[in-house]
């Protein structure tokens, strides 16, 4: 979070004319910054010289809190790291602790985690694709997406009693077993939801104006994406077929069959905003696929392993990665054998995406910046933690 940003930029426009460079302050309160983000936009009329991201407005020192509240106590805070899809954050922290202490999670617990995570992923991607539509000026897809997300929230509420900050998982498993009849209702919902994805495609994905707005905008090559450490759908949008769920298998994911959709440059350049958008749309379908398998094949047994109340893992450091909605979320935890972690560091997908924007924004139009932010699916709390 910095207040003074001074960057010397040449101010010669095309044709050798001296043009006025406008410094626009986009955010922290701006309708399209998805939370509290701030960009200092150096613009020449509608064309940006660059947009300099300025973060820290949502910094809640979650990592410092982790050092104060202990392993169990930190679980509710992980919800706040990425409140749009809190389940995977829960899972990341749980997995980090389990790895530190060498705890085995019961198989039913892993299935519950997968079910919760994948519902969370669908909800998060729905927000993302809906918000992309809204940032492009089409409000209808957003309300339709939010409508479905509400139903998913209903489902998750049945599971854990919360609709946004779930606090569902525990070290060693999950807090609650599935309620009776849950699988049946969830599958009934999926039956309703899956045809709706076609409707979204019809409504917005293949809309000419929408495609024109996203295609060829801010393409990222695979090499750039990797060196910027873009992860998840942003990385896959650039054509890198890498998914932590498949390539570094964790939880129950190896037992499910699913595809890893990647960007193909179908409407423009490989790795443009449209590719990232389409990857999310396709991932929603894949999540439905995983959910069906998980709901049908869920084994019996306990959902949580025996974990002592005062949790004191052996000294050591772990770095676990989960495939969160915004991609590979790295949880680095250091223990010194006491009840409190020495250090927790969360490396999130939005953080890397945000760092990439300054480079990406050069020469784009202001309207494109909105498209880039939306297509990178930046969630402010995740950037600042």
């Amino acid at each position, binding site marked *: 979070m910095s207040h003074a940003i001074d960057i010397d930029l040449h101010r010669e426009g095309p044709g050798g004319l001296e043009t006025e460079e*406008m410094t*626009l302050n986009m955010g922290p309160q*701006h*309708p*399209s910054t998805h939370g509290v983000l701030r960009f200092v936009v150096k613009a020449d*009329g*509608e064309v940006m010289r660059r947009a300099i991201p300025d973060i820290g407005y949502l910094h809640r020192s979650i990592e410092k809190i982790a050092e104060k509240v202990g392993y169990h106590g930190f679980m509710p805070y992980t919800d706040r790291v990425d409140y749009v899809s809190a389940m995977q954050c829960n899972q990341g922290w749980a997995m980090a602790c389990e790895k530190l202490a060498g705890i085995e999670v019961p198989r039913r617990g892993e299935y519950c985690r997968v079910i919760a995570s994948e519902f969370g992923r669908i909800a998060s991607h729905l927000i993302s694709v809906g918000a992309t*539509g*809204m*940032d*492009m*000026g*089409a*409000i*209808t897809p957003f*309300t*339709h997406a939010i*409508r479905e997300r509400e*139903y998913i929230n*209903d*489902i998750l509420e049945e599971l854990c009693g919360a609709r946004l900050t779930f606090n569902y998982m525990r070290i060693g498993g999950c807090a609650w077993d599935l309620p009776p009849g849950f699988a049946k*209702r*969830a599958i*009934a*919902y999926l039956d*309703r939801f899956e045809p709706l994805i076609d*409707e979204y495609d*019809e*409504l*917005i994905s293949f*809309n000419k*104006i*929408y495609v*024109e*707005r996203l295609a060829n905008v801010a393409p990222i090559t695979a090499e750039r994406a990797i060196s910027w450490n873009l992860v998840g759908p942003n990385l896959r949008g650039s054509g890198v077929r890498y998914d932590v769920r498949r390539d570094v298998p964790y939880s129950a994911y190896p037992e499910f069959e699913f595809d890893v959709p990647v960007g193909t440059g179908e409407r423009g350049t490989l790795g443009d905003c449209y590719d990232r958008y389409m990857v999310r749309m396709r991932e929603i379908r894949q999540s439905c696929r995983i959910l069906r398998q998980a709901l049908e094949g869920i084994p019996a047994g306990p959902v949580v392993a025996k974990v002592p109340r005062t949790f004191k893992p052996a000294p050591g450091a772990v770095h676990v990665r989960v495939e969160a909605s915004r991609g590979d979320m790295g949880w680095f935890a250091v223990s010194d054998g006491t009840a409190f972690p020495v250090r927790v560091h969360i490396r999130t997908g939005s953080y890397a995406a945000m760092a990439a924007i300054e480079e990406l924004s050069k020469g784009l*139009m*202001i*309207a*494109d910046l*909105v498209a880039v932010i939306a297509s990178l699916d930046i969630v402010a709390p995740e950037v600042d933690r």
Partner: protein
Amino acid sequence: MQQLADRLIDTGFLQGLPRGLGYVIVVALFAFLMLNFIMLVAGVTSWLERRVWARIQSRIGPNRVGPQGSIQWLADGIKNIMKEDIVPSAADAPLFRFAPYLAMMGFFGAFAVVPFGDGLIVADINIGVLYVSAVTALVVVGILMAGWSSNNKWALLGGIRSAAQIISYEIPAALAVLTVVLFTGTLSMQGIIRAQGWAPWNWFLFHNPFTFVAFFLFFVSALAEGNRTPFDLPEAESELVAGAFTEYSGLRSLLFFLVEWGNLYLIGAICTTLFLGGWQVPAFTDSGLVLGLAQVLTFFLKAYFLVFVAMWVRGTLPRVRVDQLMTLCWKYLVPIAFVNMILAAFFAAILPNGSIFVKAGMCVFGLGLAVHFFQRVLFHLRRAKPELHLSPIV
């Protein structure tokens, strides 16, 4: 209107006053009535838009104030009037205060030539169509003024976008109007309506292929001039916060919204006049009053159908980017409009009164197009029922 004023003065109303002053009083009276009427139209349009939009988005929309929320607009208006009117300290206060009125003036003036019925028009001036394009130019200046005087860069960008957009799209719009004028030989709004008939095949929409194209050219350009989605860049909330209107609050902000929704109706009304036969109804009765009411009703229905289409478009389409907007105008609409007008001129030279075969053919073509379109949207129509109270999982 002058006849009306004459009649009023002759029949004893305003007796004893000089004739000129009588005119002034009558004009002022009409202006007052018109202003209230426009407020009503704009208000109802705003309510309608919110309801239509809500329905498209699978919501309910305002439904608390009055039956089905139908006087929600009144409540909103009162709320807005009572709100504090903030002038930012860095703003250029005189211009900032004046801008909404200028915009208001522009669009208010345009209502003077909207023909609601046979004889029901404030002023049937013989350059009506031209006059509409001319006075709506004031709206642009108002928006530019608002954008500049706010001393806010987002507002300035919005104002500049708006100006660029409106002056660009004025060209295809004017050319589309001229295509019609080629066949009417008059610029008067009533004259254009009188050149059409009540039946669809007598409308200019189906007069010949060129007026058919001109209708779409005009409608698209009018949407752009009215800052409607997909051309609502000047107030693109995801990019420019609220564009030129960002700093406005209270009554002044309300005036801008009035202009926006009033303009929406104006678009519908002018399209109806030019292409859809205006107030023309078959002479089914001798009673002048009933006929007049039928005419007004017809005009409103047609205009509101187009308003509905504009709302539908807004509920469906994303917004174009500024360069795409200009590309669409200068690389597609303007050349098409020019070619269309020249071809229409040839057509007018060969068949000055049109041909019944061409008209019939165009009607069939239009019907086919409509059927095809509805088949495409049937998928969504089936799902358009609001499912608000039914949770699918319980």
